[in-house]
């Protein structure tokens, strides 16, 4: 073989050798590129699923709201749904998304006149970088009407919720909430609060009464009516629950202030221990005022009812009940009767103006076909003089399997 032929063979060999090398390098490169691509894809999936704990021990996720769950599915919320909510919120926060930001979230009307329509506005802005969609604006009471002109807001765009609140006829504090639901995942539901107080043009003192059966006239205070808008008025009527009170007044007299002296019928009052006084007026903006009263009852039971739980049939439970005269008057218990027969009085001890009763409760065998095993009884305590008191006893049987 000549030198040229040798060189040619050598070059060919080099070419052949180089070709082989190139093929191997290409092959290896393809493998590496493929591996890198698969690792990259796997890594992205992994990152999307793990919650971000880089900031410390705690993470919070937005609270699932009724509307969010309605979006996810109609099925009961499961752990997987909540996990996917975590994923979505993470991705959403990375992109920011729509954000609803209110100028203020509380409006205080201050003092309001009764039965008037009162307006206010809540202004918000979409401070996010995606379209804000208002799904719902809903109040929690028919007295509050909230309106919004449109539902979609571009980033940077502002909107106004117009609210009309109708005040009550009676004096009352206002605490109403309007819920705004949107696609802002960090605040899917925002509560806007209305505060204030309905104030009647005719004020009354006292605002409520606590009466006593053993005091003269039940220790009922005088009622003062004062008009704050200087509009003279007359008293049309004075009524109380069960007719337990009356008052003298001249319906022809008009002035801006009255002092009424109620007269109490103690017998009727003892039959209506809780009730109301209603005073009718001729004031054009205040037709009546109501004053609640309550009376300390003559007797008190402590406790007033008995609950026994996890009992077995025939297994006795002992309880103490005190019968107390609130006015420290001497009294006698005439009789003690268990209506169903499950309560036995073990002892009855008189201590001054109260009695200590030791009771034994014996649950009966439950009805065989009852789904939920419950028993009840009541102990009727008859006081000499006619008054009757009742202690209700309610018991639930144990549902634990017997060993």
């Amino acid at each position, binding site marked *: 073989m000549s030198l040229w032929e040798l060189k040619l063979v050598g070059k060919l060999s080099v070419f052949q050798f180089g070709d082989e090398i190139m093929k191997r390098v290409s092959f290896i490169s393809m493998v590496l590129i493929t591996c890198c691509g698969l690792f990259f894809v*796997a890594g992205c999936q*992994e990152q999307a699923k793990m919650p971000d704990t880089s900031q410390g021990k705690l993470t919070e996720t937005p609270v699932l709201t009724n509307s969010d769950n309605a979006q996810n599915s109609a099925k009961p919320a499961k752990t997987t749904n909540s996990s996917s909510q975590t994923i979505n919120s993470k991705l959403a926060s990375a992109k920011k998304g729509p954000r609803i930001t209110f100028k203020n979230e509380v409006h205080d009307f201050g003092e309001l006149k009764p039965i008037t329509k009162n307006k206010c506005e809540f202004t918000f802005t979409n401070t996010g970088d995606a379209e804000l969609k208002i799904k719902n604006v809903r109040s929690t009471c028919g007295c509050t009407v909230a309106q919004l002109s449109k539902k979609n807001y571009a980033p940077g765009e502002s909107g106004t919720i117009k609210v009309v609140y109708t005040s009550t006829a009676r004096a009352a504090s206002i605490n109403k909430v309007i819920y705004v639901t949107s696609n802002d995942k960090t605040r899917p539901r925002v509560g806007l609060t209305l505060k204030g107080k309905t104030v009647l043009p005719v004020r009354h003192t006292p605002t409520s009464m606590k009466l006593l059966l053993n005091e003269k006239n039940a220790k009922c205070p005088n009622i003062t009516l004062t008009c704050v808008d200087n509009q003279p008025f007359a008293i049309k009527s004075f009524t109380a*629950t069960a007719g337990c009170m009356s008052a003298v007044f001249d319906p022809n007299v008009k002035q801006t202030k009255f002092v009424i002296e109620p007269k109490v019928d103690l017998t009727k009052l003892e039959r209506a221990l809780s009730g109301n006084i209603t005073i009718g007026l001729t004031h054009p903006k205040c037709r009546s005022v109501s004053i609640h009263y309550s009376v300390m009852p003559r007797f008190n039971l402590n406790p007033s009812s008995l609950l026994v739980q996890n009992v077995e049939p025939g297994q006795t439970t002992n309880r103490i009940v005190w019968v107390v005269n609130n006015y420290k008057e001497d009294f006698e218990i005439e009789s003690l009767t268990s209506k169903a027969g499950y309560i036995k009085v073990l002892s009855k001890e008189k201590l001054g103006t109260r009695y200590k009763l030791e009771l034994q409760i014996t649950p009966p065998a439950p009805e065989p076909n009852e789904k939920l095993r419950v028993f009840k009884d009541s102990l009727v305590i008859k006081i000499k003089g006619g008054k009757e008191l009742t202690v209700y006893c309610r018991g639930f049987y144990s549902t634990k399997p017997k060993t």
Partner: protein
Amino acid sequence: MRLFSCVCILTVAGSCISGMSSNSGSKPDTTAEVATLFLTGNELGMLKPCGCSGGQLGGLDRRPAILNAVQPSKRLVLDTGSFVEDDSEQSRIKLQIILEAFDHLKYDVVNLTDRDVEMVRDIGLQESGQMSFKLISTRRTRDVNVPAVFSKELGLKAAKITVNIAAFDPNVTPFNQIPGLFAVRREMKTVNALILNHYDGAVIEAISQIPVVDLVVCPDDSDIPRVISKPKKHPLVISVGKYGKYVGRLRIKAAKGRDKLEFAYDSVPMEETLPQETTLVELYKVYQDFVKEAGLLEKQPRYPLSNGLKYTGSKSCSICHGYEYEKWSTKGHAHAYKTLVDNGSQYDPECIRCHVVGFNYESGFVSEKETGHLKNVGCENCHGPGSKHISSLGAEPTTEPVLNCADCHTPEHSGGFLDHEKEYLRKIVHWREQKDAGNVK
């Protein structure tokens, strides 16, 4: 051949990589690695929604569907208290039912607020010996003497966790004693939670200076549970909502190879689609039976009507207003009482007031036996008591008290009414238009 070899190698390499990424956690094993703290509270007497309209949330009978999704060894179920709104006889009955429901639901711990302590004492319930759950409270009385702290161990694959729950009142316990409330186990991770009975920003700010506290639970105006603390701020401050409409859920994750626990809080709405648990459905019927036995309708305090005014019943209006009475008789209002009878709520004052005439007033509805003529939503609900109008042969108009539609059709009880008032009004039309012949005016 070479090409074929390349394809095979690449396929095998790809499969290996995908398999590794699957095993590393594309579907986390939540049941093994996650412990759950379920939080409820502020029931405020709501045993279940009234059912008067659809779309209502709540109900003790639907809680098992959520709570029982996690086995007891990996969950802690807590109620923060405020069971009822007042100390009335009806509230006492509700309290008895709620406590029995908690026992059946296998609650671990229940916090008592000051009012709860009084109410629990008033039903003669001693310490929690009779119930399966433990009671905690910041308040102690002679009759109700329960501790302020509760602890439970939850076993996860990666770690054992002790959850400490402490009722806290800054008027009772100084802030510097908070760390001493929590049990410390060196071999265990701990989650320390404080229950507050009131929301106070200054108190929460003071608590945030105490690193050992992980979670603060306090009441809030909203009936929806929410995260009150700012994002990524320690500790996590949350509310549990109101009326049992939602169950709060704090999931605690112990990740392998990680020293710290991870928390995620969300809430599950008690929707109508959740199944009802039979025993608790029966328990509500027991409640209705107790309410009937207590005779609450007769005991209702009443407003007096002025100047001898009385309710007379819709039938008495038919003498002069025959057309209107006949038309009304065909509408839903004329059958409102039956809807209560059908579900056993006709003895419940909270339900009856919107299904009869004049319940809050003297001479108004008392019972079907005594005042059967005042059943259903009748003429006098909207037009006022009729006695003077009848006795004057129509010369005197009817007067207050009158109800507005929204007094009964509240968002809670009539969810579809708001924004659809005109449609609702069309359903009850029983009058002739003013220009029509025969119009009474």
